[in-house]
């Protein structure tokens, strides 16, 4: 709910920085977040494409930039320990103000090509959930290790590449662990389900993750549960939905996450990897024989018998 939402910039608009002087050409609109509008841009004179977010409130956007900056330096430290790799810049490339515009603040980040999680699964099938879920949990774990919770976790904020790489987008709701969650979405909010506080902790994100799975697998059921009266709405409804899922290992993982039973995202990711990602279902599924097939079989037996009788008789 921005205070002002200007019409989006037309294709070809050059956004040039007031402080650092870099110029970016707008290719198209990618989407609107809570704190601003995101464009696909190309740095002038270069080939690389980036995502650029223009804020509608300087303070809110700067707050988001601050989160990204601390994540960046946390990742840098851990990557320095491990191995040097180029996507250091995954969180934030630079921030600046739009010179010549209304001095709107903006920041530039890596462009994640793909589609939002719910659309990805709708296109590629729910069998991808084991892999994509694991990637997403690993992303959350990295974030938690740096001392932040994501807050507003929902399918719309997860970008998935064609090969199942998951990336969190829109860090507008991220806040330090132990602080209140700044932005949330009803269905994915622990408080909405009377299931705990709105203080950002690792379990908060895991709860949202569990609701996200339920939404992907049984959106109608979730909708019905959410429409209950606030007094009667409870986490038990979600647990019931989770229990009814055909995959029993997934449902017990979800139940634990909904109850806040994991010690943290590391444990949760490990359990997911062990029980859900690693379980290869046998390719052949046992199915009840449909009645028409039985009938057809009976009919063909009868025809065979009749034929034999007929052949023998003449």
């Amino acid at each position, binding site marked *: *709910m921005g205070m002002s939402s200007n019409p989006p910039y037309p294709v070809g608009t050059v956004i040039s920085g007031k402080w650092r002087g870099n110029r970016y050409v707008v290719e198209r609109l990618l989407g609107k977040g809570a704190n601003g509008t995101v464009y696909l841009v190309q740095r002038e004179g270069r080939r690389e494409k980036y995502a650029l977010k223009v804020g509608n409130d300087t*303070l809110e956007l700067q707050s988001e930039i601050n989160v990204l900056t601390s994540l960046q330096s946390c990742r840098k430290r851990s990557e320095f320990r491990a191995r040097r790799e180029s996507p250091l810049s995954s969180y934030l490339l630079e*921030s600046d103000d739009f010179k010549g515009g209304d001095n709107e603040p903006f920041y530039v980040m890596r462009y994640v090509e793909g589609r939002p999680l719910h659309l990805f699964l709708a296109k590629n099938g729910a069998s991808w959930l084991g892999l994509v879920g694991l990637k997403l949990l690993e992303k959350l774990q990295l974030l938690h290790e740096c001392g932040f919770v994501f807050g507003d976790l929902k399918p719309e904020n997860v970008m998935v590449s064609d090969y199942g790489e998951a990336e969190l987008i829109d860090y507008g709701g991220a806040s330090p662990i132990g602080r209140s969650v700044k932005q949330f979405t009803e269905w994915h909010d622990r408080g909405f389900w009377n299931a705990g506080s*709105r203080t950002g902790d690792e379990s908060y994100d895991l709860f949202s993750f569990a609701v996200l799975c339920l939404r992907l697998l049984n959106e109608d059921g979730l909708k019905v549960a959410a429409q209950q009266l606030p007094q009667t709405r409870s986490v038990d409804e979600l647990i019931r939905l989770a229990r009814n899922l055909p995959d029993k290992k997934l449902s017990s993982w979800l139940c634990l996450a909904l109850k806040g039973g994991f010690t943290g995202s590391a444990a949760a990711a490990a359990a997911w990897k062990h029980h859900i990602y690693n379980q290869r279902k046998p390719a052949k599924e046992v199915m009840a024989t449909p009645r028409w097939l039985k009938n057809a079989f009976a009919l063909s037996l009868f025809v065979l018998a009749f034929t034999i009788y007929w052949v023998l008789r003449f």
Partner: protein
Amino acid sequence: MRQILLITDGCSNVGESPVMAAAHARQEGITVNVVGVVDYGTIGELGSREIADIAKAGGGLSRIVGTPQLAQTMQMMTRKTVVQTIQQAVNKEVKKILGEGSLEELPPLKRSQVVTVVDELTETTPLRIALLIDASASMKPKLAAVEEAIRDLALSLEAREGRSELAVFHFPGRSSSEDATLDMDWSSDVSEVRSLFSRLKMRGATPTGPAIFKVLEHYRYDKLDEHRDRRVSEDQGEREGMIGGYVV
């Protein structure tokens, strides 16, 4: 930091002007936000103008929404108001130090530091919000949603690090001599927000102005034991600070 959040669905029609009452509130350092709740039809030009004017006089925000957006709107307004109030104070300091310049004009590094301070204060500043609920006849079908929104707001406040308290009033009061009735006194306990309006008798008039004055009185009356309160909370703050030190 002190706020009044007025929830109404129409025009005032009795007593002093609510715009003047809001101006008084602002003078006493209390910000007034207003939410107009409309489910069917519109609030009318007169009503929506009054809502905007009350918020303007009270230095706050105003929104007109349906009951489904009520909870989210109240949370957003409360937070925005806290942020803005702190930003104003911080901007003043920034101006004092750097001469000219608002947040927007600061170079990125300085801006980042200022916003870190604003975020910190937003989370930790003690906060009191008096909710003032219009309980005139037309509001009756919306009161369940209002109560749910209050519970939701209490939940958000509970998550803050700073001490946060709610009080709830409705108007008109129980008798004609009472402009507003206190339903719940200052509390930071979410579980106290339960069946606030169940025994409510609806009465016709909408004395918005007098009701705001009544809330101001409550704020003033409360100052008497605020001193003692503050000492207690400072003690707590110190203790928590020490514990925090160990954890970090």
